[in-house]
């Protein structure tokens, strides 16, 4: 039941799913599991510079243990060019891992197009779909991926449950060892309550997908339009050029506010009751400039001046309008004190 509903969210068969403890484990299993299942001659992996740490750090670990990894950078719109993937493929390339939706900008990558190129070269295609599943329609068949990671809590299942889609026939070696659970791909007693909850959450998410996606897009657009109208020298990161915008998830937007520190704006908004984020939290909880925005070649000052806003099922227009007011007020207050910002 849980497996069937989760599979339905991704358009796959129930037996193609391996339940994991979350997105991070799914990514680790995809990367190490496929590399270790294959011969030593195939030790080249391609990924992108904008992946979540759950993909980047396994790749760094692969490098430490002797594999070669190529990190593809996006354009300034945040998009990975499939031609760059083609150019990086080698005869020994085993796996290409490109995230479906970016967690900081919401930008959707051209996964189907990349997967086709990857398969022509005889390599495997993995996509980290943690930010996409439940937010946009996902069909792993149409995407053409061999491996696809999801995390339950991103579509309102409890934290601590996720899954890896493993296409029938894909060679995968377990990365932990024990019993024969999950078709010998993930030993350990199944987390049944969480899996059931994820199945139910998947069912609800799939049922509401069309309406909720449109509703969040309207809210997101309202937020962007409101902020850009009220705050001078602000703009959206990863939205693409006017007229040929990128596809994005409906719930995320990333906005820069030139001349102020994103960290200060986050605190100011948090004190007003709005939880937004800037960059990525390092282990102490301090903020480091976003590696995603830096990879998109934003100037470091602008990367530090950028905030990520995420909307969810519980948000409404009233809250978005209050957030716009709060952002305008906080940004004006911070810029008044900024040594680097002189308004035109």
């Amino acid at each position, binding site marked *: 039941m849980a497996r069937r509903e989760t599979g339905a969210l991704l358009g796959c068969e129930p037996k193609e799913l391996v339940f994991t403890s979350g997105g991070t484990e799914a990514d680790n299993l995809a990367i190490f599991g496929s590399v270790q299942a294959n011969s030593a001659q195939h030790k080249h992996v391609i990924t992108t510079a904008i992946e979540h740490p759950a993909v980047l750090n396994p790749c760094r670990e692969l490098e430490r243990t002797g594999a070669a990894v190529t990190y593809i950078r996006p354009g300034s719109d945040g998009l990975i060019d499939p031609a760059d993937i083609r150019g990086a493929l080698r005869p020994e390339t085993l796996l290409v891992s490109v995230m479906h939706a970016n967690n900081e900008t919401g930008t959707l990558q051209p996964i189907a197009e990349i997967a086709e190129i990857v398969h022509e070269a005889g390599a495997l295609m993995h996509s980290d779909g943690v930010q996409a599943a439940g937010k946009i329609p996902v069909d792993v068949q149409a995407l053409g991926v061999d491996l696809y990671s999801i995390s339950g809590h991103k579509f309102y299942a409890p934290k601590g449950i996720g899954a890896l889609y493993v296409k029938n026939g894909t060679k995968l070696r377990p990365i932990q060892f024990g019993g024969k659970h999950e078709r010998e791909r993930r030993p350990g007693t199944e987390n049944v309550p969480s899996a059931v909850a994820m199945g139910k959450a998947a069912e609800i998410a799939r049922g509401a997908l069309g309406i909720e996606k449109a509703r969040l897009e309207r809210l997101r657009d309202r937020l962007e339009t409101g902020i850009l109208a009220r705050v001078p020298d602000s703009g959206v990161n990863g939205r693409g050029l006017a007229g040929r915008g990128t596809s994005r998830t409906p719930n995320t937007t990333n906005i820069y506010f030139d001349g102020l520190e994103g960290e200060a704006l986050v605190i100011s908004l948090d*004190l007003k009751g709005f939880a937004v984020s800037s960059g990525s939290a390092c282990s*102490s909880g*301090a*903020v*480091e400039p976003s590696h995603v925005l830096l990879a998109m070649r934003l100037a470091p000052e602008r990367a530090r001046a950028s905030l990520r806003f995420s909307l969810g099922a519980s948000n409404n227009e009233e809250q978005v309008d209050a957030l716009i007011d709060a952002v305008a007020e906080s940004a004006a207050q911070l810029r008044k004190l900024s040594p680097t910002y002189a308004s035109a």
Partner: protein
Amino acid sequence: MSGGVDSSVVAGLLQRRGQRIVGLTMQLWNQRRLPELVPEGGATGRCCSLDDVYDARHVAQHLGIPYYVVNFEAGFEEQVVKPFIDDYLAGRTPIPCTLCNNFIKFDQFLDLASGVGASRIATGHYARIGFDDASGRYQMSRGADHSKDQTYFLFGLKQEQLARTDFPLGAFTKPEVRALARELGLPVAAKPDSQEICFVPNGDYAAFIDAYFRERGIAPEKTSGEIRDTQGRVLGEHAGVHHFTIGQRRGLRVAAGEPLYVIATEPASQRVIVGRGEDLLRATLSAKDMNWISIAPINQSIRARVKIRNKHVAADATVTPIGNDATRVEVHFDEPQRAITPGQAAVFYDEDLVLGGGWIE
């Protein structure tokens, strides 16, 4: 909030007084850098360690106040760490705590606090701030606990910085602060005091400088050279002028019939000059970049007690302005003082009142 007892008590005291407060911890240095400096079993006196941040967050949760960690790593490296290294290589003995106070805590950090809506900042320094109606100036005095007094590191504070700063611990002794921590039920009440320069593990600044250069891939300029005595006789070799500070006795590895001390370091010739204890005595110094706190810049000589390093007992002296604007002064001590060291601060007192201070040239 550093996660230590002092700043935790500050938060508890302010909350008890009914102030609306926000707890902030400054992330100043990435402890994953220079891992070779950390011996097995961990180093002591490390700033921004995860344990300290955990403690600070725990205290904030205990008090029920908003709490954030803010990243000042870039500013700290530029304004504190690099000048610290440059000073040592130039034969001076720097005070990074003062640079951090001048350029990070009471500058960038104060701005951030204002930006998020805080009208004032409070820190756990042992010092007192008052306002003198007669002169219209904010004044600074030594903390009630003279053994913990930190005014030596705060001489760079400007009037507009003092106007927005509180030192709630200035009126207390350290044992009183520990008692307050227990009374407030703070989870860090029994935590030991921190020591040393916060970003230098185990106080080994020379090893820090060497490791920093290795990390940056910069070959340090050759700073090794001869050890000579005051008559110019070569007594031995040393590994770099940055290993030495004036008055230092240990680590010279020179055999002599009497105790030898570093009298001077000469970066230009890479020489370290050593001599007897009495060779360290000097009656005068000049100081630059003067900051006047409790009094207006002087235009004539004044009498003051002058402190030339943190652990020095302030000594009577006459302070005379050089030029018209009193940004430089000459200090003449009544009695010669031991080991006057360029790069350290000269801070002037009238009893507990901090008149001002500058950098020893």
